[in-house]
Every structure is written in C-alpha cells, then in structure tokens.
C-alpha cells in the first residue's frame, strides 16, 4: 500500500519532469544521487569520475525523460543509464582505469564520519575480491537493489548468466557476509 503510494508520487513527479519542471527533477536527483554515485564509484574506483558519470547520467535522464513511461520504476532506468555511461567510458578508457584501493572515496569536503569511511573501505575491499563481471552483478543486485531482470537488462546479459554470476559471487562472499551479519 505504502509502496503504491510512493510509486504514484514518483509517477506524478515524472509527469511534472516531463513538462520541464526542474524542481520535480531536483527531487528525483536528490532521491537517487547517492545510490547512483555509490554504484559508479564502486565500478570506477574514483570519486571524481563517479560524480561525473552520475552527472552525465542525470543529464541524459533529463533529456530523455519525455520518453519515460510514468508508472514504471525510475531507479532501474537511471541505473541502466549510469551503467551504460560507465561501461562505455571504461571501454574507451580501458588503460586509465583506477584501482579500487585508492583513497579517492573520501569526500574532499572532509566532514565524513569516520564510520562511513570504514564502511566504504570494507565494501571496497569486498568488491576487489570479485571478478569484474561478478562485481557488476553484485553491485546492481544488492547495492543498487535491482531485480534479476533489471540487472540483466542494465548489463545486457542473459538472466541465467546474471543468476549464475550472482550465486558464484555470493559463494565467494559467504563467509564475509555471514560473519558481518552475526557481528
């Protein structure tokens, strides 16, 4: 019931965006900027590049919002745009890829709580232990919260592939995750 209300509200916001309402779009940006940023960051390993990608993704979304059908969930669409941006960037800049173990995740503004930094650090290390494909799949499924089908669509893979990659990744992370949940 609550979900439906949220969806309706989101639908209304999208309709307003489609009429060129920037305040409505601002609401969209503020709602999804962090999840997109996290996804981009964990994919690229660079805070600056991740922010650029998020910005580009939102610009593309703003440009194409007219073709979006209100009533459909917005997040998978945005994530898909972002993933396309990141992947296309990574394809053309394969050599300049930044490793995940740099410290660029720290907000230059500086008022990051120490706990946040620790959390991010941990996740970064977890991701590092996975292959690129597995990382992408896990990121979209559990970090961005996309369904199996949405993940498959965003990555341009078959659902079966995504499923097997997910289970293999989870197998790898089993110990870590179990320990964490117990703690």
């Amino acid at each position, binding site marked *: 019931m609550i979900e439906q209300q949220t969806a309706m509200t989101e639908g209304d916001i999208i309709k307003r965006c489609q009429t060129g309402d920037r305040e409505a779009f601002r609401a969209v940006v503020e709602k999804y900027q962090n999840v997109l940023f996290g996804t981009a960051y964990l994919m690229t390993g660079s805070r600056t590049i991740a922010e650029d990608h998020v910005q580009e993704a939102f610009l593309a979304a703003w440009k194409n919002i007219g073709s979006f059908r209100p009533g459909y969930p917005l997040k998978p669409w945005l994530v898909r745009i972002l993933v396309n941006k990141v992947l296309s960037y990574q394809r053309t800049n394969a050599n300049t890829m930044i490793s995940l173990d740099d410290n660029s995740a720290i907000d230059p503004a500086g008022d990051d709580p120490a706990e946040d930094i620790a959390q*991010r650090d941990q996740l970064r290390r977890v991701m590092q232990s996975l292959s690129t494909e597995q990382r992408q799949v896990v990121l979209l499924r559990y970090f961005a919260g996309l369904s199996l089908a949405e993940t498959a669509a965003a990555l341009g893979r078959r659902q079966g592939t995504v499923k097997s990659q997910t289970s293999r990744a989870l197998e790898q992370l089993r110990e870590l995750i179990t320990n*964490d949940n117990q703690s």
Partner: protein
Amino acid sequence: MKDEKNNSDNMENKAQKFFQKRAASFKVGKGFWSKLEPRLNEKQSASSAKRKESFWQWLAGPRLIAISSTLGVLVILATAGSLWLTRNNNINHSNTAGIIDRGAIAKGGGETYGGYSTATTVTLTNGMIIPQTTPAVTITQTSAPFFNGDITFAPVTTTNSTDTTGKQVISQASVALEVSDVSTAVNQVETLAQNLGGSVDNMSSSGSQNQQQANLTIRVPANQFLAALNQLQTMGTVESQNINTQDVTQQYIDLQAQLTSAQLEEQSLQAILAKATTVSDEIAIQDQLTQVISQVESLQGQINYMQNQVAMSTITVNLTTPTQNVGQAPSGSLTVEVGNVDNTVTSVKQLVASVNGIINSSSVSFDNGKESASLAIEVYRDNFDQVMTTLGKKGKIDQKTIQESTGTQTTGTQQSNTPPDAMIYLSLIQSTGFWTAAHVTIIIAAAVILVVLIIIVAAAGRAGLLRKKKA
C-alpha cells in the same frame, strides 16, 4: 532441494543487508545539484544539435550504403524506364509518319491526296481520295446527277403555274431521304404537307428497328411544290431526287375542245330529240344522245383529274435509316516485333475475343531460331481503330498500313446484323532489339533482388556491429 533454496534465499537476504548497510555511507559531494542544474540548460539547448549529430551517426555505416545503393538502383531503373519509353514513343512516331505512303500503295486505285500529313485516308467508291479530316458525310455517293446540294429548280419555277400563263403543268417529284429516325421524319413530312395546304395520300412503312423505311405520297398545292421540296431536303440526307414536270396544256386544250364539241352535240341532239315525231327516230336519237352524254362525262372527268393534278403536285417521299454495308470496311496490316511471340499470340486472341472479333487464320513458324506468327483478324468496324492501337502497343512496330472505311455511316456495329468485316493482317516477329518488355522485367527483378540483398547485408552488418559493441 528445499534446503538449498532456503539457503540461497537466506544468503541473498544477508547480502542485501550487508550491502544496504554500507550503501548509506556513499554520499555524493555537496552542491551536486547546483553543479548539475546549469548543465540542464546546456543539455536542452544542445539537444537539437545532438539530434542532428545522432542522425548522421544513425545514417553512417551500413545504412548509408543501403540507402545510397537503393537510390542508385532507383536512378538506374528510372533512367532505363525513361529510355525505354522514349524509344517506344519514337517507334510509334516514325511509324505514324510512314503510314500514308504504305496506305496509298496498299490498296490504292485512286490518287493520293497530297499535302496532308494526316495518317489515314478515306477512299470513296469512285476512286477519289479525300482526307479523313474532311467530313465525308457532305458528299453523297449516288445522288441524282442533276442534284448537287443547293439546287435552284429553275425550269420548274417557270412552268409551275396554271393561272398566269394558261399553261397546264403537272409537277411530280420523288425524293429519297436518309434520316436518323423514320417515324419522326414521317411526322415531319405529314406536318409539312398539312402546313402547305396539302395532304398525305398514301403512307406505308416497313423494316426492323435497325433498318426502317417509309414511303409517303403527299400532295401539295402546285405553288408550294418548291417550298415542299426545299423543306424535305432539310429533313435528312438526300439520297436521290427526281422531279418530273409534264406540260399538259395541249392535252388540256384538246380535252376542253372535245368537251365543248360533245356538249354542243348533246345540245343539238336534245333539240333534235324534242322535235322527233316517230318512235324509231326518237330511239335512234336517244341512243346517240346517251353516247354523247357519256363522252361529255368522260371528258369532264379527265379534265377534272388533269386540273387536280395540275393544282396539286405529287411528291413521293422515301424515308430510310442509314443503310447497312455502305462502303468498304477498314482494313490494316501490322508487323510488330515482340519479345515473346507465343505470349503475344495468346494475348491477341484474348483481345480479339474481347471485342467479339474472329481470327480467320493463325500460324506460327520458326525460322533460324526466330519465331514468327501471322494472324488474319476480323473485327467490327467500330473496334478497328482500338484494336489496331492495342496491337501496335504489343511491341515495336515495323510496318503499319491502314485503309480507312469508305462508309459514311456508322455501320458494322456489334448491334447490327453485319458480321465483323474489318480485316487486320498481323505479323508478329521475335524481337532482336534490346529493350523488350521481357528485358525490362528482368532488369527490374534483378534490381529488386539487389536492393533486398543490400538491405539484408546492411541489416546483418548492423547486427554484427551491435554485437561487437555489446561484447
């Protein structure tokens, strides 16, 4: 199995919790919106340029090849088609120019009318040729020799009087008129007679719907004789006209003299009879008197009749609808180069059947690997031009001769009883030319196949590119 699934669900939930717990720690830098907002403008204004750019991107590659190849093929086809049409038009044109000579040679017998560029000629039975553009209707073929249109009847006017000069003239005429509708014409003639103070003496009509005929004998006052003839002349085409004037003055005078003498004799016999004394004398005089009286009556009768004949002119009017089988049927001969003789023969047969024509003879022969056919076709005169034109379109015309109909009426229609009698001698020879319909068809088919192939290749190429892109 169930345990496995529960296990995996459990693991999924744990993973979800694990990641969501840490997701909150990822925050985009402050002032993200303020950095993004100005770019929304730039994005919108640049969108049209982007769209143009994306159009060219869309067009580039296989699409461009496909579109340009298609356009190229279309241009080739259009050029080939126009060349073909131009060539065909030229053929028709040159043949039109050549017809008149062949026409004159083919069934000549008359002099060729010079100075006309028109293709067809009309030959009259008397051998005179006039161009088709001249309305042939104005010239009648078997008109009475003395009658040539605006006749003045000079001799009749001077003799057509009984009172002024004392001359007794009986005027009679017979007129054969061709009219479109006999019954209407009969009514017109009746009205004419009544209007001129005359009457219809006799009327008979006969004939079917297509060929009606009526004979009328009208009497009009002698002084209206010419007027009657002139008016009759306007009712239709004068086929023949015969005017007969008989001067009966001498006979009339003779009859009058005989009558006077007989009357005098009658009077004297009456006087003698009155003076007769004996019965035998009386009987003898009576006998003679009876003879004389009978003679007087007879003479009076003849005089009355003659006076009547002089006073009222007799005109016999013969009305007919345009006659059948007047003139000669049109005929033509045609040699056409075609791509496929057999197919053309079949289509010609269909064409002839569609206009209820007859194919008199049809023969197909092979000579040096080339097929040829000759057909003798008979069609209704009405369909002659149409059939000739259609046959001419079957291919390249090598030779064409037309002998036009000499008939002035629209005879030989399918409705009339006349059989189709317009002859067409058709020769079909296998074409040696390049641009036959078959060739054009093959070229079009090849072009279509080429376009389809290009599209398939382009689509395949694009699909390959996409796959590569994804990979």
